[in-house]
């Protein structure tokens, strides 16, 4: 019998964050926009940090951005992941910064300023999370 495939842990859904993860399950990367002042934010917050409005809107994002920082994680290792794990902070075109993983690339090719685009990766419990891959002509 073959071992079960390595599956990353499912995100924890809360009353504050569920919009982000539910959209991801539908293959969408979303941000939160204030219905009054229009401020975009991520992660989603219970209210707009600028004007304190409770009118939260969920808006689709382009999924395009550049690597702001990264880290190639070697140790310690958890059985839910294949190592090394490439952790990235991505600055999205809309001005939001998200924590994610970079996939479909070699660790040695990762660099700050690298153009990336969103992709989606399965987790346990039939959930999906946004990840990123190099943008542009695929190797």
């Amino acid at each position, binding site marked *: 019998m073959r071992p079960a495939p390595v599956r*990353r*842990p*499912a*995100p*924890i*859904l*809360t009353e504050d*964050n569920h919009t982000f993860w539910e959209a991801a399950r539908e293959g969408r990367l979303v941000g939160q926009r204030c219905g009054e002042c229009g401020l975009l934010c991520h*992660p989603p917050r219970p209210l707009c940090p600028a004007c304190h409005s409770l009118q939260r809107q969920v808006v689709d994002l382009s999924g395009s951005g550049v690597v*702001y*920082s*990264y*880290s*190639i*994680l*070697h*140790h*310690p*290792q*958890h059985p*839910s*992941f294949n190592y*090394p*794990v490439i*952790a990235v*902070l991505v600055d999205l075109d809309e001005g939001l910064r998200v*924590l*994610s*993983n970079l996939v479909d690339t070699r*660790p040695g090719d990762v660099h*700050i300023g690298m153009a990336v685009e969103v992709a989606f990766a399965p*987790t346990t419990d039939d959930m999906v*999370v946004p*990840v990123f891959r190099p943008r542009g002509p695929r190797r």
Partner: protein
Amino acid sequence: MSPGIGRSTAIIGVGQTEFSKAAGRSETQLASEAIVSALGDAGLTSGEVDGLVSYTIDPVEETELVRALGIPEIAFSSRVPYGGGGSQGVLLHAASAVASGIAEVVVAYRAVKARSGARFGRAEVGARATSQHSGSTAMQWCTPYGVLTPAAWMSLNATRYMHAYGVTNEDFGRAVVQLRAYAASNPNSHFYGKPISLEDHQSSRWIAEPALRLFDCCQETDGSLLLMQLEGLGLCGPGEAKDFVADGQLGPKGGLPCNTNGGLIGEGYIHGMNLTLEAVRQLRGLSVNQVDDARTVLVSASRTGVILQRP
């Protein structure tokens, strides 16, 4: 801490147990032993203690300490969030209680069995939806991405810092070698008699590439972001810390002797409280790596800090 609080309060006694990888007794016992030691140092009895302050993540309950030590009555207790990052806030809480007159003798304690008990630096995915008052609410965004340890979180900041100022892991290594030199001459340190060279540092395995190698990390967590702290506190200009460190300024004869007990990376990982103890030893002239005529010591954790002065 306002000057008013600083003038009307003082650290009058310190105590600790040995630092070990397997204590062989409960956290309540460890805390009690350290408090008895501190009371002896201060010339006080447990009957005079009327306040207790610790970390939100500390497992030792106030009621258990009251019973174990025979403390008659507590007028004040509080806890400070964010683990070691909040460590120096414990002093502020204690001093505020004393300065306001709510309490007279407040014990600040931290007991941790990080090796034999639960381990913070281990990769775990047990993030919770709600806070344990240690930053765990934000961890829900990290867990699905394998960013599971303090070293992993901090390395993302470090990589960007390295990029911005042309800093290398070898630059971090120069600071680490100095901290390990202090630890090597500290009999209480886990690394007593075990200095490392820059070559040792550079050949230790990657934890979070390109920022952190094994020897950049504390016994449990990341400790190499000293350079960023120096700049954040304004002790160096942006990007200048690597040259400052390479000049030996952190050493005992340098302009800014730093973590003279070896720090969390060298002496032991007691979530910052052992740095406070070392500051007191320096001001008393009793450190094993004593700085000549130390009068003012900055104790800096990531989110909190205090300046201690000799009276």
